[in-house]
């Protein structure tokens, strides 16, 4: 993996954390990391970045379905293992 690939994964982790903290579902970061780890997923990255991405700042019930989306976020610990 070259330096730019490593950089992209680090950036994806930062996007995930910052996005989560601002109420933005960081599907782009997830898709980007998937691509590096599995290859051949460029389309999914493009598709996910075409959407109108919004930030939601509200108290959210931890029992709502949205939580499962939140738990799909990249775990930076696991990311580090893949560097």
């Amino acid at each position: 993996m070259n330096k730019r690939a490593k950089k992209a994964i680090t950036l994806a982790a930062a996007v995930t954390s910052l996005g989560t903290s601002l109420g933005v579902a960081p599907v782009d970061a997830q898709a980007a990391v998937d691509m590096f780890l599995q290859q051949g997923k460029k389309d999914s990255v493009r598709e996910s970045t075409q959407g109108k991405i919004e930030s939601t700042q509200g108290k959210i019930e931890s029992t709502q379905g949205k939580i499962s989306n939140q738990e799909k976020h990249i775990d930076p610990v696991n990311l580090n293992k893949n560097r």
Partner: protein
Amino acid sequence: MARGDTVMRIPARKTDLDGNAVFGFTCNQCLNCCHHKKIQVNPYEIARIAETLGITTTECIALYTTGNGSYLKFREDATCPFLDTRGCTIHAVRPLVCRLYPLSRHVSDTGHEWFSELQPQKNCTGIYLGQGSIRTYINEQNAEAYMQAADCYLNMLWKMMAMLENLVADVEEQPHGQHPDDAIGVHTEYSNWMDMDVVVDRYCQIRQTAFPDDIDEKMRMHLDALYFWINNA
């Protein structure tokens, strides 16, 4: 892609409200809404809480957050870590989502802002007034500075996402080779870019400037450091 495909879905009873929409609410401090919640906290909010508690942002993230510093870490009994029998122990520096409640705020990547009225919390003893406006309510909650800070970080996030997309395209074009820019230092030495104190401390060392006392100045440096990082990769 329709609105909502990449957005948190929240239980709102009204949405697409602008700041002039009629809204008024008196909270009776029953504290029911400090249980079973996801409370998002951005680096500015962590810095405010850390300052009040007299600890570093590193300690604050470790002690009170989850998701790499993105949410407050609720206790096993599903209560907020800052809730005690007297109420919110960090009321003066409570996060934006707590100030807004029972509203939520939405911002698109083009800067469009709108609000939702959330479904009332079960057993909430607060009173909906049917007068006033969302803007007035936000002012009463001293939420403006927190919204501005969130917007500063959001602008950075959109830049980071654009940069990520470029990197992905680049790497796919040259999956096995070295990119010409690889000679440029890759600033990946921080394990957590959310940690304002660590990032600003390092940035001050590089810039040979004093570590700022003021949180607004610290936030500005944090954003500068992030900007420097994504533009020098």
